[in-house]
């Protein structure tokens, strides 16, 4: 197979400055994606990407918020890459991210490797960032003794999947309107198609966590909501 092309998909909602920072970090990578699809999911002020040399950024827009899962689906359907990379608008890409993710995906294509999840570190040094970092909350851990790279699911803050696998699985479940649960549901759809996932420690992004107890609680409330959806719709039949 020829070198696979790469599309990076990023949903965003009312985070213009963070989104700009993320794009700047991608523009500074030694290897860049062929295209970057930013899906503005109903921001109050429509997002306009800065002009960055060497980076082909397209901004798509939903007039009203639909949730990150549906926004990612929009980005994927408008993109053309063989490999789909996902991250969030509150992340910063670290050098080596794209090479390590795509090399691992390419090495496992024939064996059914559908997706890879990378490392997610904390950008800040505040208490909340240290907590997320300590527990590696956004980083699935290898779980299979016989296959030490295998991870049970992907987290969309940092993952890459083959387009053909994404399409077979039907993309993200658009019925989840919040951030939380949509990546677990997506992983289950992929696993149902007999794809497996691996961890790539070298593929690293940094995540900005909001240093407030209120936001911390809201985040886990959303994870609980999404967790219930996944349990009821995917695991109870």
């Amino acid at each position, binding site marked *: 197979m020829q070198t696979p092309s790469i599309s990076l998909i990023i949903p965003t909602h009312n985070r213009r400055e963070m989104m700009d920072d993320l794009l700047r970090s991608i523009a500074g990578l030694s290897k860049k994606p062929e295209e970057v699809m930013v899906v503005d999911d109903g921001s109050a002020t429509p997002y306009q990407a800065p002009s960055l040399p060497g980076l082909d950024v397209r901004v798509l827009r939903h007039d009203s918020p639909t949730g990150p899962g549906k926004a990612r689906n929009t980005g994927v359907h408008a993109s053309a890459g063989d490999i789909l990379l996902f991250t969030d608008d509150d992340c910063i890409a670290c050098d080596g991210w794209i090479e390590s993710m795509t090399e691992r995906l390419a090495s496992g294509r024939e064996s059914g490797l559908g997706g890879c999840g990378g490392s997610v570190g904390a950008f800040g040094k505040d*208490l909340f960032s240290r907590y997320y970092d300590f527990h590696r909350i956004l980083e699935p851990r290898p779980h299979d003794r016989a296959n030490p790279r295998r991870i049970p699911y992907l987290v969309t803050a940092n993952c890459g999947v083959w387009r053909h696998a994404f399409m077979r699985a039907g993309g993200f479940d658009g019925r989840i309107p919040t951030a939380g649960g949509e990546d677990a549901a997506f992983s289950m759809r992929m696993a149902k198609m007999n794809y497996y996932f691996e961890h790539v420690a070298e593929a690293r992004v940094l995540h900005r966590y909001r240093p407030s107890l209120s936001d911390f609680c809201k985040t886990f409330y959303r994870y609980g909501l999404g967790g219930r959806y996944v349990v009821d719709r995917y695991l109870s039949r």
Partner: protein
Amino acid sequence: MSWIDIFLADGDPHKVYGADAKTALSHMMRPSDFPRLIKAYWKSDLPRMLIPAFLILDLCRAYAYRKGFKDGAHFPWPDDP
């Protein structure tokens, strides 16, 4: 298994691997887990002065997740167009 079980297993996921996804998503910290959690923090490389704050965050996290999980049963999930 959930985050707390993995951590309580001293970071060795193989000790707890085997639970299904339903258990992992449904389970959150119970009060009876607290002594083991304190011990695990104590044995970890976490600075001691951060342990009380982390325990408070654990409580907030468990409460928020449980509430979300409970509310999710009645949440008006939209239809997929």
